[in-house]
């Protein structure tokens, strides 16, 4: 294949808009995902992440804008595009009527796969998901983590060029999350393009090369995790617990930092934490945590701390 710009671009969204009745849930969203990248879609609940994914899968027609995946227009070419995508949906939709191996086999058949090639693929995927010894188990016998691993294995049955993961680790314990992250990095290594939605900032920071933060359907920031942190927050953070009003006043006067109070915690964002830490050394009654700024700080800074439904 000629390595042209078009061949390197997996997803191209231009002014993509989705409206339900009066409500615009995705507003003029434009972005490009190059081949081999892990691209993140971040945003609070209801930001429009899942709707954007549904449009990319051709499961939701666009109200306006243009969306191409593998250079083919959606939703017109949904079937052909989906033949090259693997999907890990937010909610479990494994087939409860089948065993683990049967789930993979039947799902493979939807892609037109069968016979020995499919059998070999299933064996590989069961090993990939560490489920080889459970091949004959029923889906309702599996733990949440096993179901997720099976769902990821299922998404790979057609050896997809693009894997779309909608909150793949929500509700999983740390062991499973770390294992899934390792598997996703393996996939990236093998040249696959990943599109990931998550509201775990740690996950996005670890996995994504580039990401969008969307809120109320619109893009509010874009860049690599490191660039977003540089751009949107001070590099160092001090979290102080047990501070009273007087102390806050003192801080405001003496420390060169931006402060935010949430409940009993004061967050101080600063370019230079030394004066502040020196001040705090003399106050043993205060507990504080000194850490570098992360993507969560960026996220809270630009989407606000209001609760979302």
């Amino acid at each position, binding site marked *: 294949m000629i390595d042209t710009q078009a061949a390197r671009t997996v997803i191209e969204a231009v002014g993509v808009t989705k409206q339900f009745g009066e409500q615009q849930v995705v507003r003029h969203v434009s972005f490009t995902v190059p081949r081999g990248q892990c691209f993140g879609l971040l945003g609070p609940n209801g930001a429009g992440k899942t709707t954007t994914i549904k449009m990319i899968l051709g499961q939701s027609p666009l109200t306006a804008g243009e969306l191409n995946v593998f250079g083919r227009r959606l939703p017109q070419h949904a079937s052909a595009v989906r*033949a090259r995508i693997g999907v890990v*949906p937010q909610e479990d939709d494994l087939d409860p009527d*089948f065993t683990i191996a049967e789930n993979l086999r039947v799902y493979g058949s939807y892609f037109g796969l069968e016979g020995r090639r499919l059998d070999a693929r299933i064996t590989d995927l069961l090993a990939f998901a560490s489920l080889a010894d459970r091949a004959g188990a029923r889906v309702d016998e599996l733990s949440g983590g096993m179901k997720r691993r099976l769902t990821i294995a299922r998404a790979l049955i057609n050896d997809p060029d693009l894997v779309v993961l909608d909150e793949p680790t929500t509700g999983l314990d740390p062991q499973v999350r770390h294992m899934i992250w390792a598997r996703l990095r393996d996939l990236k290594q093998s040249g696959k393009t990943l599109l990931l939605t998550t509201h775990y900032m740690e996950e996005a920071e670890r996995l994504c090369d580039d990401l969008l933060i969307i809120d109320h359907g619109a893009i509010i920031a874009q860049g690599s995790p490191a660039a977003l942190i540089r751009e949107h927050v001070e590099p160092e953070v001090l979290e102080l617990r047990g501070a009273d009003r007087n102390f806050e006043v003192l801080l405001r006067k003496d420390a060169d930092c931006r402060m935010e109070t949430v409940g009993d915690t004061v967050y101080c964002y600063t370019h230079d934490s030394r004066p502040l830490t020196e001040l705090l050394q003399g106050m043993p009654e205060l507990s504080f945590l000194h850490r570098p700024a992360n993507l969560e700080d960026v996220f809270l800074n630009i989407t606000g701390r209001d609760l979302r439904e």
Partner: protein
Amino acid sequence: MDLRVPRIRPRALKVWRRNILVWRKLITPSLLINFGEPFLYLLGLGFGLGVFIGDMAGLPYLTFLASGIVASSAMNTASFEGMYSVYTRMVPQRTYGSMLATPLDVDDIIAGEMLWCATKSTISAAAILLVASLLGAVLSYAAVLVVPIAFVIGLCFAGPAIVMSAFSKSYDFFNYYFTLFITPMFILCGVFYPIDSLPAALQSFVQVLPLTHAVALVRPLVADQVLVDTGLHLGVLLIYAAVSYYLAVILVRRRLIV
């Protein structure tokens, strides 16, 4: 609303095959119901009631009833499958959601489901025919042709049932369809007695109901009579099947592709 005319593609058979694989796992209870229920009808009504009725429209009552039950059972089987099972796969189980992440479209899913509903109708009709022939109610080898006809009957009733599923918010909704459509057809369309014994106005009304035409195709084949108006009867069933397929696809698209 996406009104595009659906495309019927061979990949619809993947959906059909998925259902076969599930059915195979539950084959014993399924077949038990397929054989048990008609056996009960034929034994209870055919013999119990038959004693008092003797002949009906020139046929032994058991033969008359058996041919009606074959048709109505094909109707019931496709209706149940098209409502309860299709709804389960569409809504709580999200099976269609997972299929729509693959190259399958709504067009394929609904085509596959209709083929599957019709397959189940065929299985149930074949089971009843077998029971009826063991009881001596089948009078002609031409009754073998009832098997493919049951498939067409299944298609005809699968579509409307899937339309109901596409509208439905819960399983309760299906009671209306059974009470308002399926049960009246079961009672009025010639399963238990010939329709020409109905009042004239009702007779013309039942002519637009598909079960009337299903019975009109099945009975002569079972009872060794001459089949008349075959094209008309098959045509009515196929038109119901085609129109309801189109409607079902549009409505399921509206529900799932939003």
